[in-house]
């Protein structure tokens, strides 16, 4: 990197090792606690919430997944997985479309941008309460006329996983998606599309065969954000899921009631999904990047 031009003898010796040590301590601070609960989730049957380990076993995992434990974790798990996958796909599609829109001029673009940023900054409990209130008002005001013409059940609750819950999650993931699209499109050379144009490509063709392959690795990045943010989301979910519970909500409820390593086993299971997704998508990202560079070199 450009740092090379700075005189070396001033840089490397003391401050470098000092800062490197600081960084190492920071990494321990970040990962240390997580490693302890990953370890403790393999406690023996007689083990408790803290060290020492009383043997090594899968006892708590079996209890958790066997259904003999505290909650029906399997249902919440599948529910969160389904919601996360939906949020992921919608986040990618909606962000790409909006990213394309922002490359052109349209009225209200500034307002839309500020709303997206605001959605990131406004406390989640406020958004969550707002969505819950909005749906309650809908149930009170919109439902009766629709029920009168037979379109809706006269009594019921519109709050739910794939109505208010999905919307709450999108209000959280879309700002990230949009910001990533900005970063991507800002560095995308427009002359490729112009070349495609000059060669007679239609709008769709220039997107499909020119733009999409170039932005593909970053779309994987957006899906990573979309899924993991939804998978772990809790503050915005708290009032918007209706009668259903997502996995993080179950987990948060368990923190006050469960006093066995079962909760660590659940933590490990949730983290395992996160890590699979993170490393899977990062792997795909670097694979696509490399392939693109290789193709570029070959002139393909």
């Amino acid at each position: 990197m450009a740092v090379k031009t700075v005189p070396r003898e001033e840089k490397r010796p003391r401050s470098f090792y000092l800062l490197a040590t600081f960084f190492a301590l920071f990494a321990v601070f970040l990962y240390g606690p997580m490693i302890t609960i990953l370890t403790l989730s393999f406690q023996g049957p007689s083990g408790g919430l803290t060290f020492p380990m009383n043997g090594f076993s899968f006892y708590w995992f079996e209890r958790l997944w066997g259904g003999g434990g505290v909650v029906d974790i399997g249902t919440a798990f599948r529910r969160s997985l389904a919601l996360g996958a939906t949020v992921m796909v919608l986040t990618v599609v909606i962000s790409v479309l909006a990213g394309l829109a922002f490359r052109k001029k349209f009225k209200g673009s500034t307002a839309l941008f500020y709303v997206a940023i605001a959605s990131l900054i406004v406390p989640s409990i406020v958004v969550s309460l707002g969505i819950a209130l909005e749906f309650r008002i809908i149930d009170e005001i919109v439902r009766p006329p629709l029920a009168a013409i037979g379109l809706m059940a006269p009594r019921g609750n519109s709050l739910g996983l794939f109505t208010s819950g999905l919307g709450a999650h999108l209000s959280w993931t879309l700002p990230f998606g949009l910001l990533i699209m900005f970063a991507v499109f800002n560095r995308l050379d427009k002359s490729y599309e112009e070349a495609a144009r000059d060669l007679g490509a239609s709008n769709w063709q220039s997107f499909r065969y020119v733009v999409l392959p170039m932005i593909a690795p970053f779309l994987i990045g957006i899906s990573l954000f979309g899924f993991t943010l939804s998978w772990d989301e809790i503050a915005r979910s708290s009032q918007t899921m209706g009668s259903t519970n997502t996995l993080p909500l179950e987990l948060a409820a368990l923190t006050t009631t469960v006093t066995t390593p079962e909760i660590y086993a659940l933590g490990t299971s949730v983290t395992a999904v996160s890590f699979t997704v993170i490393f899977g998508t990062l792997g795909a990202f670097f694979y696509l990047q490399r392939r693109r560079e290789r193709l570029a070199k070959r002139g393909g």
Partner: protein
Amino acid sequence: MTKTLEAPADAGAAPQDKRRDAAAGRVRRTSWTPRWVAYAQAAPMALVFLLFFVLPLVATFIVSFWNYTEYSIEPAFVTTNYTDVFYGCFSGGSALCTTFATYLSTLKFVAIVWAATLGIGFTVAYFLAFHVRTLPMQITLFMICTIPFWTSNVIRMISWIPLLGRNGLVNETLVSAGLIDTPIEWLLYSDFAVALALIHLYTLFMVVPIFNSMMRIDRSLIEAAYDGGASGFQTLTNVIIPLVKPGILIGSIFVVTIVTGDYLTIGIMGGQQIASVGKVIQTQINFLQFPIAAANAIVLLAVVLLTIWGMLRLVDIRKEL
């Protein structure tokens, strides 16, 4: 990675590019696509934000003027919810009212967490940006900082329990080392635990924007400072810190707003014993007292927006970009 992170620099320079494009007659090229296309493309996102962000805030504002009984909420226009929120705040008594006391407690966490995340975040970003020399290494170390962000906050919180608990690793170690006789009680479910967990969760929000600002600093400026005889410390205070101000500001906005609205970390790490505005709102929701919860939410929103406005006044971000 570096290029992605540099992107906002291009965004800042966009107006000039546009002018240049216009001069070159390139603007005409956008007319390839019909005008309605941009609106159609922006519509899904606009719709989501309208339905699940703007209208909910409007609903909250409206409901904050409604009436409620033990069993129901009913449309009305009363200001009692707000007078209830600020009950006893302006009566001139010597004791702080509940709302002010709660905000003061939150402010304490904001101050501690902001200072700590800024210190740690700046140091980590500085190391990554100026001391790590190869790009692959930079990406790897940056990823090490980022990966926890993609895992569950609740799990990252409960992972402190085996360390800080009464029989936790820290207490066991200290006792067996003979440094203390009885376990320290204030490590878990305390102000300390809350602050620690918040720092643990949100330092990344400082690292990323500060690192981004640092990567955009023209290295020749630093070289020039050294050539001009500045020491490492002088370069830091006179060249680097002024140039990374926007990054510090963006990180600060994130940390301050998150901590202000937090209820989960304060709940779990404080053993449900420490007050916060978010927790007050949540409790009122649980008792189905929606109008007063809405009034509290509007006050919280106003506080957050005022804070951001104040911070933006401190540093003009558009000028700095």
